[in-house]
């Protein structure tokens, strides 16, 4: 600790001219090395993860090849494994979750950052952080005991009556399925969107708002046309953080999705997600091929997350280059 305090005044131009040895003696090099190792471990862990998933699924990859992505059957007894229903379920539940969570989350963030008094905003932020920290199994229980009966007895019959002509709202209303899983996921990810978006909105410089107001815009116009676009990159970031959480969520999803590897246009239908099937079946998976097929599913989930994160990066880059000066949010 004492070494770092002695280096503090060295914000002067002399810093570069000190010899390597003196920097080593004063601890700079050691701190640099240690923190570099910490940072490098992130890359190492990612590589190790991919390597392990790749190695662990060698039999399954060779046996099924790319057909793994297109096969709809999952039959441990027959040794036939396909990822399609699980990929479908993972994507559909995540999309439903975002469709619900994004407007609600961003709306709430705008209220907290721009409209609410600071005291209200800070109090609510405390509760939002609390919600973000609730373990997912609690959300699963909430979903199973409260959301499922609500969906079955009230929401699904009403959706069927009013929008039943659409293919999304057909079939028997069990209360569990894609729609319920998406809704529970939405409840889980909204705190992330609110919390991150609020911070980003709050960090928009005051001048931006004042400039807009000075030009005669209303408060809403300054928020919607100036502040939100300025914070666009950060808000996108919060959405993709939410997406990542939704894709990988296991416990809460398996409790309300119905755990049936089915592909159906109807959101009322029971389904399955990649994370849920791995958690459900891995402990009892025997033989060579079966556990490997589950590990390959893990690889698929990793790939899915990787692709979506890549897309997110590209979108953030594209939007931040389009004039809004805040790429670092």
């Amino acid at each position: 600790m004492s070494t770092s305090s002695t280096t503090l005044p060295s914000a002067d131009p002399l810093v570069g001219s000190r010899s390597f040895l003196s920097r080593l003696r004063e601890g700079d090099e050691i701190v640099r090395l240690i923190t570099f190792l910490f940072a490098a471990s992130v890359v190492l862990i990612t590589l190790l993860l991919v390597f392990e998933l790749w190695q662990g699924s060698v039999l399954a990859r060779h046996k099924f090849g790319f057909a793994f992505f297109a096969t709809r059957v999952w039959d441990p007894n027959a040794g036939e494994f396909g990822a399609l229903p699980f990929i479908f379920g993972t994507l559909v539940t995540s999309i439903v979750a975002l469709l619900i969570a994004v407007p609600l989350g961003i709306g709430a963030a705008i209220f907290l950052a721009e409209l609410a008094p600071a005291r209200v905003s800070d109090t609510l932020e405390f509760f939002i952080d609390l919600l973000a920290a609730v373990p997912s199994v609690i959300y699963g229980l909430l979903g199973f005991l409260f959301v499922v009966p609500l969906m079955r007895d009230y929401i699904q019959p009403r959706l069927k009556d009013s929008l039943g002509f659409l293919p999304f709202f057909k079939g028997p209303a069990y209360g569990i399925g894609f729609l319920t899983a998406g809704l529970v996921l939405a409840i889980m990810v909204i705190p992330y969107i609110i919390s991150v978006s609020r911070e980003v909105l709050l960090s928009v410089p005051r001048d931006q708002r004042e400039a807009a107001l000075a030009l005669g815009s209303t408060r809403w116009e300054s928020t919607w046309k100036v502040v939100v676009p300025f914070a666009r990159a950060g808000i996108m970031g919060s959405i993709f953080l939410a997406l990542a959480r939704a894709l990988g969520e296991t416990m809460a999803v398996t409790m309300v999705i119905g755990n049936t590897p089915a592909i159906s246009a109807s959101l009322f239908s029971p389904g399955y997600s990649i994370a849920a099937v791995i958690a459900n079946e891995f402990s009892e998976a025997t033989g060579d091929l079966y556990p490997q097929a589950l590990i390959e599913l893990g690889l698929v989930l990793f790939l899915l997350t990787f692709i979506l994160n890549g897309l997110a990066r590209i979108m953030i880059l594209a939007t931040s280059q389009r004039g809004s000066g805040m790429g670092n949010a």
Partner: protein
Amino acid sequence: MKRIAGILLASFGLASALLAANALTITGAGASFPYPMYSKWFDEYHKKDTNIEINYQSIGSGGGIKQVTEGTVDFGASDGPMNDDQLKAFQDKHGFAILHFPTVLGAVVPTYNIPGVTTDLNFTPEALSGIFLGKITKWNDPAIAGANKGVNLPGNDIVVVHRSDGSGTTYIWTDYLSKISDEWKSKVGKGASVNWPVGLGGKGNEGVAGLVKQTANGFGYVELIYAIQNKMPYGTVKNSSGAFIKADLAGVTAAAAGAAKSMPDDFRVSITDAPGKAAYPISSFTWLLIPAKFSDGPKRDAIKGFVKWMLADGQNYAEALSYAKLPKEVVAKEVKALDGIQ
């Protein structure tokens, strides 16, 4: 302050060193169904012989087989016997065999939630396989109604619920369906997880029970113990002698006694659809998986000592925890088989 801490640390160190000097820790892993029984046994046995501590992780039968084969635990435990491939894999890796020792018995029961029906329903094998194959879809189907004269069954769709997690319970249920239905055997087969023709998946006994309770016209299967402890309605099942049996511990032991006469020497036997008038047909042993050879002498003696105690005094704890005891014939056979562990 420092001094006190030092003294405390030293005495802790001394105490743990003393304890460690004599303690022998045995590790096991596997089936979760008998876990309450096993933890009671290991606890009682530790009280009897404080030098022996048995750590058991209920990670599931598949995990137990995997870990004992890899040699990371001293023994495994499973709700379904190891198949020939798994036995061979163990033999190839270690150069000696792995032995099965039945410990207690359990049963799986059909449970349902039909609004307006409060009596126990009777299920024929044809009805059970038909419902789970998706061929019988309504409660008033003749296959169900025929065995339940006088019960006013609705014409509603049956909502089938099964386990989504791999489990010994599913193994027993599908093992039974495979025995009574050729179509089930060829289309679906038996296993801890199978490709279900119909139905919703619930995680764990509580997941299945929850879905059945919540969903009108729901139908699923749970462990007998779970149904008893949670006071769930469950139906009788027609056995191979044609009698409808409501599952209880006596019926399960009767099924085991029926099978005891033809018990193979390796104890790998399925007692679903067992013969005997009083036998409940969806019953099963659960097994300890113990390697036939130990390089560590004290460990071997400790495990043998435990199994011997479990077969004698240990059995008396079973019924209080709603597990069925082993029949006497099986106990005698197992005591002999213990000599096979070297």
